């Protein structure tokens, strides 16, 4: 069994071993600490000056990563908590993303900004957010998120191949979960990867009642809801988990979807789900039976106390009830 954080760590080791152009910058990422979530453990020991623990300067390290990329190298920047990506907004939006196009020709900026995101760990309002929505729709900026299905090494390769800055969200609870392998989720569910999108399904069910679309960090809550819906309400769901969140890739299997529901941890309003619905509504207009449902966290700060936090963020029970209600 491999935990997602261990898998990411191994992918970073492999990447830096294979490509001497890759630099890694971030706060407290060096050994023996190895990063707040231990994802960078062993890298500074092995790769020396290519791995730099930095001062608390999210904006500047994003800019330094862009500078290294402009100069012909490749950079991975770790923002300790995704919330702090706000401090790097100018560098990412006004420089790194724009530089790929504003000089009149394609300028490669191979830069990956890793952002540990999400709540359900009691870290409170400024260390628990899923701020993906704030970076959607920026020309030249792509958003990815780690999932329990995808190979992190392949995702790093894909992001660098785009030659444009990418934000890579990594859900903090997902770090602790195991990766799925060989097409098997558990006794009920199977999965396959199609064009970079994980599709999770019940063996033998070809026409699910509902298709859930989630980002990587929501996977387990969605699976819990799907299990309950199947066992207790006789509702069969399929789950789509794209690693690329923006621009949204083509999602498989939706032509036969009876209902589509997008679930996310971002707060309500101006959401990733709204972007997914924007892309899907014209495509599915003739086959959808009802509007796409959007489930997101409440329009609220994220409290620290676990009983309060649980109410604000999306839990499996809420997904289950929302799906059951709309289909009833």
């Amino acid at each position, binding site marked *: 069994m491999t935990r997602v954080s261990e898998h990411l760590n191994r992918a970073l080791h492999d990447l830096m071993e294979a490509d001497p152009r890759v630099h890694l910058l971030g706060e407290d990422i060096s050994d023996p600490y190895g990063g707040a979530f231990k994802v960078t453990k062993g890298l500074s020991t092995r790769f020396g000056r290519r791995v730099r623990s930095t001062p608390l300067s999210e904006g500047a*390290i994003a800019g330094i990563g*862009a*500078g290294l990329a402009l*100069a012909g*190298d490749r*950079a991975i920047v770790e923002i300790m908590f995704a919330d702090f990506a706000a401090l790097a907004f100018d*560098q990412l939006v006004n420089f790194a993303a724009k530089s790929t196009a*504003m000089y*009149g*020709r394609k300028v490669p900026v191979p830069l990956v900004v890793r952002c540990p995101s999400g709540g359900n760990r009691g870290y409170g309002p400024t260390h628990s957010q899923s701020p993906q929505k704030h970076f959607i729709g920026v020309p030249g900026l792509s958003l990815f998120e780690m999932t329990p299905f995808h190979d992190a090494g392949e995702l790093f390769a894909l992001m660098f191949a785009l030659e444009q800055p990418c934000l890579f969200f990594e859900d903090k609870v997902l770090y602790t979960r195991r990766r799925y392998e060989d097409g098997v989720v558990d006794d009920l569910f199977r999965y396959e990867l199609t064009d970079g999108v994980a599709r999770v399904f019940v063996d033998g069910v070809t026409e699910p009642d509902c298709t859930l679309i989630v980002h990587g960090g929501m996977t387990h809550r969605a699976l819990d809801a799907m299990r309950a819906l199947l066992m207790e309400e006789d509702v069969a769901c399929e789950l789509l988990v794209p690693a690329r969140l923006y621009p949204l890739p083509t999602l498989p299997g939706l032509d036969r979807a009876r209902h589509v529901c997008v679930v996310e941890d971002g707060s309500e309003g101006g959401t990733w789900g709204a972007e997914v619905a924007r892309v899907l509504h014209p495509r599915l207009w003739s086959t959808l039976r009802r509007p796409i449902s959007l489930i997101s966290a409440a329009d609220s700060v994220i409290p620290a106390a676990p009983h309060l936090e649980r109410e604000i963020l999306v839990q499996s029970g809420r997904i289950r009830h929302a799906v059951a209600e709309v289909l009833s």
Partner: protein
Amino acid sequence: MVVTAPIPPCLRQPPSPPPREDLELLLLIRHFELTLLRLFEAGELSGTTHTCLGQEYIPVALSPLLHDDDFVLSNHRGHGHFLARYTEPHGLLAEIMGREGALCAGVGGSQHVYHRRFLSTGVQGESLPVAVGVALKLTETGALTCAYVGDGTWGEGAVYEALNMARLWKVPLLVVVENNGIAQSTPTSAQMAGSIAARAAAFDIPHHRVTSTEVGEIRAELAPLLGVVRGESRPLVVEFVTHRIGPHSKGDDTRTPEEIALAAAHDWYARYARDFPEHFAALDLAARERVERIAAEVAARPPSVWERP
């Protein structure tokens, strides 16, 4: 901190005109900028522009001190920086006018030019972290990264994040501060507490203040300091005490006539015209006519074409 007193007037060389190629470059930049203001008044330019009138000598002085493999980062007031780095006025004017042959297809315009090893961008302070990244790559190659900023730029937090890492990691970064005493309309005294020298000192970064406007003197002062930046791979802040004799952009000068006259009193153009009239007049006329020809030629070109990536 490096403390270098300006050369006392009694020890200065008797006035002699600057070398011909320096004066030609100074005059090219001067007439390029004046032409932009004229074109704006005639309604032939769109958007905005920031001219470096009065400050042309700074990039001209630095020009031979910079090597081919150095990387230059510039800002909103960057036409002089560009022309002193790469004397390609047709391409720059085409970029500003959105015409064929534009350096960046007319997408970047006046403030966003990336050509060979020159890159400008329009957000204050944004370039310094990028400069540290480029300089990291150049460390121990003998090349350096030169970043032009203004006095107003020092209001941005990014400057301090970048200086901190530049010093911690010992990167070959030359920060050129064009302190013209005014940030758009705000006098430096109203927007900066303390001094640039003290701020550099806080990061243990050497600071050198240049008060001369003579390119030869400036080069003599700076050549050994730049050698240290390259040889020992360490950052340096060079602060030029300079004067912007034109508006911030166009027609937006809120200074009093007295303040503008004070700035103009430092202008190299008037000084050379006065001190070396014959030598100056011929080169001045030639530069004026050259830029007029360039402007006419570029204005007649078809619009630039952008192939979106």
